[in-house]
């Protein structure tokens, strides 16, 4: 019995080391290793980039993790990552924290993103003004019929507070860009830990209203056209409307490094802004940084 378990352990070690030697070359130990962490909005894009880059550069290994923009920036401040992904600008408090830790965040715009407001395909509502969306999420409107829909309760879906998407939505939509505004999401807003959670709930719940980065909205979900003001044009999000600024909720996506990047990190970031990498941006539903 004891012998059997020892054999099993040895066997699994052999299996494990076989696996690792199949997937890495001898040069792996001297390879450059880049740690990339942060925004869940960017994580799939970052992963696609990492895969593409590594297939062309076998001497670099990149690991990608999500957790939210706040997570990435916190990790940068703690000194545990090389590149932090953020779907919002770094906050004042974070900058102060960074400085006191001896960290100097340098910002790079690596793509642009539209935030789409999504509803269930059965929902007849297909256009809303920014003010209406703000009122729904702050709790003023609780029923779809108040915004021209059916008599159904509105189930408000949102990302978690550590999400850059969430913060951006709070500042741009709920508070309509007014820095002094203190409006908050209504207390019964569901704070889902991921974009995909929002998508799957909206997909099967006709009462649901959600928002997500354009890259996360699958074809079968319905996007709402948004007018910046009552009486203005209702615009659907797309690469074109983000670039000509007619879509109301669009933002830059960032990567932060500690100080000016050098070596492998610099090469990677240079590649990310190159046309080859930016083509991937468009493929995934984001907007290439100009």
């Amino acid at each position, binding site marked *: 019995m004891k012998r059997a378990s020892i054999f099993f352990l040895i066997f699994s070690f052999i299996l494990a080391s076989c696996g690792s030697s199949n997937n890495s070359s001898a040069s792996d130990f001297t390879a450059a290793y880049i740690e990339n962490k942060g925004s869940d909005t960017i994580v799939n894009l970052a992963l696609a980039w990492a895969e593409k880059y590594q297939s062309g550069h076998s001497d670099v290994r990149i690991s990608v993790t999500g957790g939210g923009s*706040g997570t990435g920036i916190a990790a940068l401040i703690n000194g545990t990552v090389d590149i932090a992904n953020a779907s919002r600008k770094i906050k004042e408090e974070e900058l102060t924290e960074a400085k006191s830790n001896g960290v100097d965040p340098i910002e790079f715009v690596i793509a642009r993103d539209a935030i789409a407001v999504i509803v269930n395909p059965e929902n007849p509502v297909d256009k809303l003004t920014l003010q209406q969306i703000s009122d729904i999420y702050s709790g003023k409107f609780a029923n779809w019929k108040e915004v021209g829909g059916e008599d159904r309760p509105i189930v408000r879906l949102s990302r978690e507070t550590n999400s850059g998407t969430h913060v951006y939505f709070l500042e741009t939509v709920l508070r309509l860009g007014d820095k002094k505004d203190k409006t*908050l999401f209504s207390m019964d807003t569901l704070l889902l830990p991921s974009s995909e959670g929002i998508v799957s709930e909206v997909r099967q719940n006709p009462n649901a209203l959600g928002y997500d980065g354009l890259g996360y909205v699958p074809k079968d979900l319905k996007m709402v056209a948004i007018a910046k003001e009552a009486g203005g044009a209702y615009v659907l999000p797309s690469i074109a409307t983000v670039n000509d600024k007619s879509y109301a909720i669009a933002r830059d996506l960032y990567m932060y490094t500690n100080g000016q990047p050098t070596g492998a990190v610099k090469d990677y970031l240079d590649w990310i802004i190159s046309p080859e990498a930016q083509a991937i941006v468009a493929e995934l539903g984001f907007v290439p940084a100009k």
Partner: protein
Amino acid sequence: MEKSLTWYEFVITRAIKASGYSAIVFVALIFFFLLREGLPALGEVELTSLLSVRWYPIENYFGILPLLTGSLIVTLGAGLIAVPFGIGTAVYISEIAPRWMREILKPLVELLGGLPSVVLGFLGILVLSPYLRVFLGLPTGLTALAGSLLLAGIAVPTVVSVAEDALDAVPRAYREGAWALGATRWQTIWRVTLPAARSGVLTGVMLGVGRAIGETMAVMMVTGNAPVLAVKLGSLFSPVRTMTATIAAEMGEVASGSTHYHVLFFIGLVLFMISLAVNIIASSVVFRTKKRAERILS
């Protein structure tokens, strides 16, 4: 009379004694760390603010009441389901089922206890919450109820194992005495066996409930995570946010040393104290009963 210890035996014995104390060391260490990182929250956030009803940490709203009530209502719901089903199943296995079925059922229930909570949460979002939404006509299926159902699934094996052991341990003479007096098996179970096993059954219930309070992944995936003050009965059918899900969802983002970080540790401290209280009560109730350990912790 002991032989004089060789040097080797002396070292081993000392090492074993040290290991024995290790449990206390770890509990103390955990408590110490939670205190160290959590107490500053009391200094940085006023108590009235901590006890307020809004939890929105990025704007410095640190009211933990919604989280507390969220955890409580989900646990309460889980308890209401797990206790009758758990005790009932334990009674069935111990008193009613034929011998051969017992040998199948016990491992089967233990199997449920081994299911990782992330798997249950996974099925919860894909299967359970849509069903709840449709069958109960709710605005959304991501509710406290979904969490309670999953938690009951996690708590029941613990309740069943411990309670079944306790029932099994009741001496046969008790039952035989009752039967000899003319009682039916049913009457015997409820008036004799169960009361005799009362402390063991209670332990099982408390341990099961304790496990439910501390559950993280399953609730994070299905309760909707809305920080609402859950005090009405109807809150069971609305989204809530538990303390455990809050820590799990937000811990990654905080800069260590920030106020948010301290408050999250404070919540962890609260959770620790709650489980401490549950355990102290459970063990004082069962001071003398010998526990079948592997069942307790399945």
